[in-house]
């Protein structure tokens, strides 16, 4: 989670955000962030985000992204 939080820190001034805060509804990030986050998790964790993964629940918060990444890594193992 710390790696993801560190990445988010590039976009959000308050890095102590609630891990369950909905990033997109909060207005803290822009539409460009969505693709940057996607490329980040792919590069950093070596996973491939596919159309089946396009679910708001996977990307809406720090906890959601962390869970999504952990599940993808576990599924690939």
């Amino acid at each position, binding site marked *: 989670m710390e790696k993801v939080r560190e990445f988010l820190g*590039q976009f959000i001034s308050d890095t102590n955000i609630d891990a369950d805060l909905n990033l997109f509804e909060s207005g803290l990030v*822009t*539409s*460009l962030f969505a693709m940057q986050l996607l*490329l980040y998790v792919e*590069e950093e964790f070596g996973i491939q985000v596919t*159309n089946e993964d*396009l679910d*708001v629940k996977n990307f809406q918060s720090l906890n959601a992204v962390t869970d999504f990444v952990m599940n993808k890594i576990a599924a690939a193992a």
Partner: protein
Amino acid sequence: MQIELTDKERASKEEFRAFADENVAPYAGEFDRSEQVPDELIRNLGEKGYLGALVPENFGGRGIDPLRWGLLCEEIGRCSASLVSLLTVHSMVIQVITRWGNEEQKAQWLPKLASGESIAAFGLSEPEIGSDAGHCETTARSDGEHYLLSGEKRWISFGQVADLFLIFGSIDGQSTAFLVESDSDGFERSPISGLLGFRAAMLASLHLDDCRIPAANLVGRPGFGFSHVGGTALDHGRFCIAWGALGLIEACISASLDYAETREQFGSPLKDHQLVKAMIADMLVQSRAARLMCYNAASLKERGSPSLIMETSIAKYFSSRAAVQVALDAVQVHGANGCTDDYPVARYLRDAKVFEIIEGSNQIQQIIIARYGHRNAK
């Protein structure tokens, strides 16, 4: 750090250049005047594998890397900006289907797009929606095994001839992307003419009146249309525009060098006049800077780096802005001759201006870049 082309990349560039010199450069002025690109040339691009250059090999494409794709855009852009827009919109849809399409969509469309049997175009802009593209007014509603789309799309490059469109609309307020075939019920189009530049890009308005498409033509998921599907396409589009503008810069330099060699005033060639030298020098420096930014974007695209999005935005902004500056100087070097149809530089200037507007206006790029600068300063 490797910033020189490899032998393989250089060979590709030479191949692309030879094709463009033979098939595009001699006719680009006529394309501009007639406001169209001949079907034969589009077929030729397909047969050469250029339309499908980014389609994975297992779907019938060439599967080339981003740098060589950029070189193709540069070489075509050196001859015709309008034709760059074909490569751009067609490959934007290819990138989307490759990235977000399901297996059925890939199998159905990628081979046809690779061969040029199908031509694709990108349908985001609307009469009232330009830069604020996340708020399209086009809507879609479910009707059994179909969606019914209603709305109007505008400024659709190659919309006059494309047979597959990536259309953005909303389902219950959620941004969503759809593949729409031109023979769908409720689909109509009308040509747009008399443009400042990109006159041969065969722009059209699309009219969707309860346009009926199979439910299977939804790309990605509802709610991810603009952010992810559109994001993928637009990032790639900016990449193509950066490289295409670089090609236009090179064309301006080439034309200006030729003219300055042969045109004499005050008893000596223009190239010997110091103020002409100043303009030539500025052109060359702009081209070098634009090229390095394009190479950088290509390298990041190859790696799938998250930095790609910002660096591509920077490359698009710089390259298109430089294209306008260089084209202005190219016309200036040519004097009154540069204001006529007898030389290509007037077309270059008109086309360069369009590069500053499409795939995200340069003001949008400036906002994005400035925001990025503040973030990185933290």
